[in-house]
């Protein structure tokens, strides 16, 4: 047996005609954070559901904390925690009652469940709301309570399925703080996200998943070097002229690039010829009378990585592909066009 906290081998799962997973392999060493990064329908949630015993795989096998997810499902449930996409708290119970209930269901004695509940509420800054029904909580508070509920059983391995989807920027930042704290305590964490910056900030290792397969794996830095070189980032002053600007500069680099018509941002991978291309781009835009609000040469972000690996932007794909749980794709923060 390996000493990795999570071992996944050629996991496959299909729903009717949809192949949700087509052979996923993963290894997560104890005490580390794996970020599973991918668009809606990539297979993230399906993987998490299999690893938390909610679904059985069609093929392949997986162990979590040494327990087989199918054959030792019952034992496994004692040592894992799950916080899902839609904050699964009982909105008619108070924050404290929710945590106590979950604690009791982990078979923690009543007094201890109450103590742990209070401790978690304090830690997640929910003490003031401890005796209010969860219905009155904000979205961010519910998420924190949901995350808290997954911790009552003191799990060895924690699964967070898109912990910040749907939260406002402040809620996301708060959630990140909470998650970062957890990680320092030695919990093994598998986190799914469709936000590249989230994976970048929280995860030790990142597995990029698309179409039911892991298409790349490594640290954020390793993945970024796969894009190679630098990226020229431009923002036009008048967003209406973004398409014109894109037409002028996208051909300059060795490969592709993208434009966001909503924000007027254009990214062009430029390899090692950054300075020359920068000069040329500025000249061309000047010729067309397009004003720039911002221009820079920067190291590639995971956004660029995703684009380079999959041929499409991370947040673009929803809608066309069925999501594994039949849910509607969630709101998109940005829309990018691949050119």
């Amino acid at each position, binding site marked *: 047996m390996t000493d990795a906290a999570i071992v996944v081998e050629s996991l496959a799962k299909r729903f009717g005609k949809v192949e949700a997973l087509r052979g996923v392999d993963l290894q997560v060493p104890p005490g580390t954070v794996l970020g599973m990064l991918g668009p809606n329908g990539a297979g993230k949630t399906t993987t998490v559901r299999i690893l938390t015993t909610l679904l059985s795989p069609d093929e392949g096998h997986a162990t979590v904390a040494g327990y087989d997810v199918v054959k030792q499902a019952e034992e496994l449930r004692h040592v894992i925690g799950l916080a899902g*996409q839609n904050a699964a708290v009982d909105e008619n119970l108070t924050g404290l009652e929710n945590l106590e209930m979950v604690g*009791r269901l982990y*078979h923690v004695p009543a007094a201890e469940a109450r103590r742990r509940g209070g401790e978690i509420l304090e830690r997640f800054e929910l003490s003031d709301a401890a005796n209010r029904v969860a219905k009155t909580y904000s979205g961010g508070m519910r998420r924190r309570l949901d995350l808290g509920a997954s911790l009552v059983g003191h799990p060895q391995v924690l699964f967070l399925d898109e912990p910040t989807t749907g939260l406002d920027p402040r809620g996301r930042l708060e959630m990140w703080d909470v998650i970062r704290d957890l990680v320092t305590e030695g919990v093994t964490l598998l986190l799914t996200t469709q936000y590249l910056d989230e994976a970048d900030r929280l995860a030790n290792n990142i597995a990029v998943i698309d179409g039911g397969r892991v298409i790349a794996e490594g640290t954020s830095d390793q993945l970024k070097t796969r894009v190679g070189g630098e990226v020229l980032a431009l923002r036009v002053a008048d967003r209406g002229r973004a398409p014109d600007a894109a037409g002028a500069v996208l051909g300059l680099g060795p490969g592709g690039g993208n434009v966001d018509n909503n924000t007027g941002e254009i990214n062009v991978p430029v390899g090692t010829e950054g300075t020359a291309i920068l000069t040329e781009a500025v000249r061309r835009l000047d010729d067309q009378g397009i004003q720039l609000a911002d221009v820079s040469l920067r190291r590639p972000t995971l956004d660029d990585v995703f684009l380079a690996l999959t041929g499409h932007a991370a947040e673009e794909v929803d809608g066309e592909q069925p999501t594994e749980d039949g849910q509607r794709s969630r709101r998109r923060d940005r829309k990018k066009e691949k050119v």
Partner: protein
Amino acid sequence: MSAVAETFRTPGRLAATVSDWWVITKRNIITYLRKPDLLVFSTIQPVMFVLLFVYVFGGTFSMILPPSVPYVDFLMPGIFVQTAIFASTQTGVGLADDLQKGLIDRFRSLPMARSAVLAGRTAADAVSVTVQTVLMLIVAYLVGYRLHEGGLEALLAFVGIVSVGYAFTWVSAFAGLSLKTVEAVQAALFTIVFPFVFVSTAFVPLATFPSWLQPFVEHNPVTIWVDTVRVLTLGELYSPQTSDLFAHVQSLGTLLWLSTLWFAGFLVFFSFLGVRVYRRT
């Protein structure tokens, strides 16, 4: 297994299961108490039924019955059983709601008994059915409902009514987990349960149905249950001796047997199906 048990000071399997059932039952009872709208409507509805049938249809219906049988006394057993059955809809609705909100996923990822979510929900709903039945008894008494038999028979009838409600919470639980949305559960249960309740002797005697429908009415489990409650509360008044309208009514012994059999059948069949769907949801 033993390593896990040590780490978590897990109680024995049976104790753990009982504890899980209790935790979920408590959760559901608290939930009901905190939903004032649900509480109000689930109590007003049965009361409305009593008033509606007694004062609106009562005059007409009582013309069919033999003069010695007051319509209220004939009617109430039907309404009691009907209310218990309809009240069970909340079980499926609650489960579909939990499912949509992701709570069932959370429960399924916890090391709790697989039966607890359903057992706890149905137990809480049985409490709610009991409360509703008591409430209706009070209202019924106020509009003139009287028992014609002893207290023991009345108690047996009461237990029977709540048991029918309980059996149906499992039907409802199965529907809730299978259909997954609150609206679908409501629609499906209404469509399936409605004919069984109304095409029975709950409101009118068997003899008033068209002859082709009578075999269905006679063997409908709702008829069996309602007849049992009637014999327990009306005694001789509800028997073939009193009127030809009651020619089909069987002896108390037979009815008790059949009632129990139907109850057990529903309970076993649907709890089996329910837990099976829960495992696979």
